[in-house]
């Protein structure tokens, strides 16, 4: 019983509220139609089963007025749903003329780049939004078509290279929301998952401020060695770190990486072990990923891990 209750609650809290209403209406209509089809198929097959092998019923069709009645009924149901869906569409998708997005997300094979134009924060994969506020989201893509979908925050929208698309996001509770890329985008499409953290107003402000602070530099020898290696081993050709001369954006931006909970588009929690495993051979962890295996030796991995893990 508990399982069923849990199940249905997931079912209904998983999508945004305005679509939920349509789900309900459609579910009722579809359920009725399906019940009638199953019932009559079954009932007629029992009731009118041939008693003798060469029995012949009267060769007459049923009244064609019935057909007409069904036709009119179908048109009415359809018109109802058309009006409902156009209303809901306009409610969900009311993008202003010259949209000023609060958040710009760019899909990459296979990670998310997030920019906050108002505050200037640039981060990757771990996306924070304030709760109780409609956020205008702009999406685009750096390579192939991706699709942004966090069911509970709003509709799905394709991220198409060369095009900008806009939707509204709305979180009603401060919690984590899960989603996934839902347009097939290559080998690691399955591992391109989304986790959006909805913060209260203060928490979001705090998070934004902390993101804007320069990277804390520790003065341990291992950290410095890692920093040197990061520059020397061409990591900087893809990864940018704010406050350093390196601002490439081919791979995820690593500023404040250590403050994130998960990495690799929500695949693994940020721990030293996971980071070491990743640096040892990225292709082992996430086959096909764009980061090549650099074949670092264990000392280098130790140093790089120390550096990246402490970017807070």
């Amino acid at each position: 019983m508990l399982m069923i209750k849990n199940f249905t609650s997931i079912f209904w809290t998983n999508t945004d509220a305005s679509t939920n209403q349509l789900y309900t209406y459609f579910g009722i209509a579809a359920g009725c139609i399906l019940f009638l089809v199953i019932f009559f198929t079954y009932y007629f097959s029992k009731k009118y089963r041939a008693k003798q092998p060469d029995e012949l019923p009267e060769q007459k069709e049923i009244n064609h007025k019935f057909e007409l009645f069904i036709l009119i009924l179908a048109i009415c149901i359809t018109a109802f749903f058309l009006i409902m869906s156009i209303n809901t569409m306009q409610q969900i998708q009311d993008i202003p003329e010259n949209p000023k997005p609060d958040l710009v997300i760019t899909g990459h094979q296979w990670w998310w780049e997030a920019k906050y134009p108002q505050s200037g924060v640039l981060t990757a994969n771990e996306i924070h939004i304030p709760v109780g506020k409609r956020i205008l989201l702009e999406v685009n893509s750096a390579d192939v078509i991706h699709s942004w979908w966090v069911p509970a925050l709003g509709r799905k929208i394709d991220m198409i290279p060369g095009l900008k698309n806009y939707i509204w996001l709305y979180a009603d509770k401060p919690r984590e929301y899960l989603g996934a890329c839902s347009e097939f985008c290559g080998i690691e499409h399955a591992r391109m998952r989304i986790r959006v953290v909805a913060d209260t107003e203060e928490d979001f402000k705090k998070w934004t401020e902390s993101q804007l602070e320069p990277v804390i530099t520790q003065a341990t020898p291992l950290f410095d060695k890692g920093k040197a290696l990061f520059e020397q081993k061409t990591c900087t050709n893809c990864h940018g770190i704010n406050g350093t001369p390196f601002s490439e954006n081919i791979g995820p931006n690593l500023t404040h990486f250590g403050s994130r909970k998960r990495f690799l588009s929500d695949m693994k929690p940020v721990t030293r072990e996971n980071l070491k495993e990743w640096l040892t051979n990225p292709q082992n962890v996430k086959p096909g990923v764009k980061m090549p295996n650099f074949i670092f030796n264990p000392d280098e991995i130790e140093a790089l891990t120390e550096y990246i893990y402490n970017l807070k």
Partner: protein
Amino acid sequence: MSLFIDIPEDDDQLPALNTGRGKLIWISSVDHKQLGIMYLWLALFFFLIGGIEAMIIRAQLASADNDLISPELYNQIFTMHGTTMIFLALMPALIGLATYLLPLMIGANEMAFPRLNAFSFWMTCMGGFLMYFSFFSGGAPDAGWFNYAPLSENNYSSTAGVDYYLVGLILTGMGSIGAGLNFVTTVLTLRSPQMKLNMLPLFAWMIFINGFLLLAAFPLLNAGLFMMLIDRQFDAHFFIPSTGGSAILWQHFFWAFGHPEVYILALPAFGIISEVIPVFSRKPIFGYKFIAASTVAIALLAFGVWIHHMFAAGMSNTVNGFFAASSMLIGIPTGIKVINWIGTMYKGSIRMTVSMMFTMAFLIDFTIGGLSGASFAIVPIDWQLTDTYYVVAHIHYVFLGGTAFGIFAGIFYWFPKISGRHLSEKLGKWHLWLFVLGFNMTFLLQHVLGILGMPRRVYTYPVDLSYWEVLNLISSLGAIFMFAGIAAFLWNIYVTLKKPRQADDNPWEAWTLEWATTSPPQLQNFTSLPPVHSRRPLWDLKHPDNPDKKLN
């Protein structure tokens, strides 16, 4: 015998009749019956390959974070599964049945263009095998059956797989256009002289309309395929946004073809159902005119609904609203057809053969597929559920629960005519129950998976999401039942074909002209035909006291 009329013969001798009877009789054949049978074998062959691919997919998804196969291989396999099932299994099966039956149903001895008919078959065959050659040349296509650009372009898909996909589909597409040409011209020119268009059996009518759909839809696909091939081979820029092309235009071409394609696969199945239900209910079909006319409406509307595959692509509310309306509109004639079929059973006297049971499974499962399809016309629901497992469930309810059940019903119905032997009803029931239960077990819960947020085309999923694992496991177990059902079907065909020929000319006491000749028909289908005054010429022949209303 004044009851029979001679059928007029073509000026030239039928090519079917000058074919030599050597070892090469099948390869060199231009006979519509032999070609039809070859289409059916080809379809069965690729259906098994696609089925094995499906089993691998379900095995990989049976548990979370599974690493049975690599992501590269998974992507190749799901791409080939979709492409195979649509272009190499379902289409050849339907075109095969049509090639075999269309001349028989309209009282002709051949298709209008027998050599073109052979050309169509061998193009389809070659395209299919060419696509599978890609496995031996570095990798199969891996960008999905819909092959969205720019993922399918050189920058992102470096193996030759997509090139094989493009060339293979161009070849099968040309074959399909050839088949379409043949269907349309055959119906228009070779009908028995007394048979007017409004007396065509519904299967023949559906194939006739289908011919037009093939002729109009496949050139659109071919144009897109050629452009992408030119992109990949000659570095053009059609679908590459980074050099000025448009990623979205490919989607327009693909779905402008893709949606009519759905009806190309559905209409012949509707035709089969419209033949089987009246025969086994012992009554004429309810609403012939509505079914025939609404098919034309569906065929025309099919070209005006494709944007509903792209509702999430960010087009304006106006465009989306317009296509929502047209998509809902096309659902009405399709939905009422179900009423027509159930209405035919009303006050009939139903014989529960395996064929009839598959038809009833069709009625229920196709309704589920149709209803889930209608939910995509409700744009906000589509904005949530497109590209999720809900779509996977929907497409399988339409193509498997709809088209494939229709094909199974048709095979059990026409097998005596084609081979002169009855498929075993007992094995048929095993086949039916295993397949239908397994099918619903596999796909019903995938609707729920989609609503819970599982995107389609994922090679795996994380372990910590509620219910994903258990639902996927049930789904994978269902696939095993389906596989067992198909094994029963194969065994059924094998044992049946070993038996001697014993079927009557008209074992089901059906009423259309294909049952007026021997089972199986001779190389020349008919030497004489019963007169055709109504939609059920054999009924009129058998019941001269109570004939159908004359239509000519």
